[in-house]
């Protein structure tokens, strides 16, 4: 792995060079107040990296909504009316800069179930993730309790870490190498760069291992014991089923598919759905197997913390803390961890 040393001006140059050939997105502070969220960079508009994560998760790029799955003609005179065709996909690289390690890790986690999804894998192939490791942990951050690290590089093509007044860029993948070349600046940080990086991380007091990862313990627990645990009612009681947690969560990947027809053109679109909503499971017959709030809240947490690890290994949570930050009734997934681990 190559490590490059960059000055602040080199970073600006990288972004400026990338923007010439690819769309580049990064977190910026909105002009309208408190929103700190993703926006397309233009020459002169640079990322503003505040501590923590932007408002919306990175799934807006890799799992965007709406995603057009198919298109069709709805003109009855057209002999091919209602014959669905997949849209043409562009092989254009999109660069997402300023990605936090938790968001980057969510991309790899979602790729476990979605690896065979042609739309997700196509976007993954055509997206480069340039990350910034975290120096500050917010009160809602808990990546070390999910198997991640503030300095983690999982899912990233380039990971940038500030050291003193310069930056060290770890070039992690082939895509990362192409980007570093395209940036046309930066100097080799030397053979001992990695050990200096690790030393600096150690000195900064940031956690160096994710020893609190609950996945191995939760995988071993009896599913029904967790499912029938006495605390679900208490957790679900204040929930409004607003779905904010599922829409902000980078690893909530459930979706709905609908046909949309406007005059003579139709498209089949996929968009985010939420297991918090009663309609999510409602049958046409009127029967609803998850008609109760308790069942829905339990399903969300059990999917993330038991069903997913049983199938794929890690838990489906990266500790970004968005659900804790935005929940109107202060439901805290960290407390659910504690409860489940105590069973």
């Amino acid at each position: 792995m190559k490590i490059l040393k960059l000055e602040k001006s080199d970073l600006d140059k990288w972004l400026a060079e990338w923007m010439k050939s690819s769309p580049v997105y990064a977190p910026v502070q909105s002009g309208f107040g408190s929103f700190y969220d993703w926006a397309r960079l233009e020459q002169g508009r640079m990322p503003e990296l505040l501590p923590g994560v932007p408002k919306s998760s990175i799934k807006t790029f890799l799992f965007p909504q709406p995603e057009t799955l198919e298109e069709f003609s709805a003109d009855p005179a057209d002999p091919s009316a209602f014959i669905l065709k997949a849209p043409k996909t562009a092989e254009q690289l999109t660069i997402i800069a300023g990605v936090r390690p938790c968001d980057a890790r969510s991309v790899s986690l979602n790729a476990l179930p979605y690896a065979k999804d042609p739309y997700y894998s196509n976007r993954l192939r055509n997206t480069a993730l340039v990350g910034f490791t975290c120096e500050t942990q917010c009160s809602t951050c808990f990546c070390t309790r999910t198997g991640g690290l503030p300095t983690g590089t999982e899912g990233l093509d380039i990971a940038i870490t500030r050291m003193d007044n310069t930056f060290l860029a770890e070039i992690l993948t082939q895509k990362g190498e192409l980007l570093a070349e395209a940036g046309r600046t930066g100097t080799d940080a030397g053979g001992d760069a990695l050990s200096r990086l690790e030393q600096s991380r150690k000195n900064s007091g940031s956690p160096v291992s994710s020893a609190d990862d609950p996945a191995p313990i939760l995988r071993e627990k009896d599913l029904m014991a967790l499912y029938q645990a006495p605390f679900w009612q208490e957790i679900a009681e204040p929930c409004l089923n607003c779905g904010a947690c599922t829409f902000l969560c980078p690893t909530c990947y459930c979706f709905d598919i609908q046909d949309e027809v406007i005059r003579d053109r139709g498209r089949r679109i996929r968009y985010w759905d939420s297991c918090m909503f009663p309609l999510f499971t409602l049958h046409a017959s009127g029967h609803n197997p998850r008609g109760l709030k308790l069942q829905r809240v339990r399903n969300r947490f059990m999917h993330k913390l038991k069903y997913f690890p049983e199938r794929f290994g890690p838990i489906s949570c990266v500790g970004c803390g968005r659900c804790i930050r935005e929940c109107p009734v202060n439901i805290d997934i960290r407390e659910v961890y504690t409860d489940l681990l105590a069973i």
Partner: protein
Amino acid sequence: MINRDLITRNINSRNTSNTYLPHPAVITEVITENSQIKTFVLEFTDKTLNTNFSYESGQFVMLSVPHHGEAPISISSTPTRPGNIHLSVRIAGRLTTALHKMEPGMTLGIRGPYGRPFPVHIMEGRDLLFVAGGIGLAPLRSVINYCLDRTGRYGTMTILYGSRLPSDIAFRQDLDIWSTLPGITCLTTVDTPEPGWTGHVGVVTTLWDHIQISPSDCTALVCGPPMMIKFVLRDLAGMSFSPDFVITTMERHMKCGVGLCGHCYMGGKLVCTDGPVFSMAELKDMDIEELR
């Protein structure tokens, strides 16, 4: 740790087939089973696909109806009779209402087949008991005809079919054929009689006294409304059927059919890929809303 190999392997193998893309299929015949159920006989417009389309009894397809999206529908024909597939659909929501207005010559979309089929291999050499209610006979019709076409591989067959009213009895063509075949006991019952009905009256579990089965040599396949499944499973357990040899199918709202969209999660199992066919032994370890 995240399994990187799995991701890399799948991302790098550029998907040539798009699992979400339905194949056009033409309705060649519509059989009206009763006032609420119609069977649509479909042929793929792609002749090669129509010849090569392979599926197993118990599997389902995602059916596209123009303007109305998709719904999971179990296949009611048997793979032993290739050339077309049958989808038997009860009118329930928006999509099925639109479907029921469609006529021969019109085109639908089909992708699949999906799901775990009936375990026909473990049924070999055993007596078979089929218990169905209403539209629940659709997937069982597939496996019943499959077993009939595989002459000599299965023991005696008993088919019990419950309907609400005599006029609700669906699949009459099949029931008439099954009733005349040797080695098959085929009984129908109705919840409420109508004038002229001389047959059995009562829910399907009232037929136990009219049949002879030996639970230790028998595999039971059960499909119908949740309430029926619940009581039939309870009675079969009481007759000391082995839970491994009581097979049923579950129904859940689905969007993708391939284990991604999250709608059909049922206590850790995905009905679309882990089911829809489950044995009673598997269901025993789960909390199923309908069976409680």
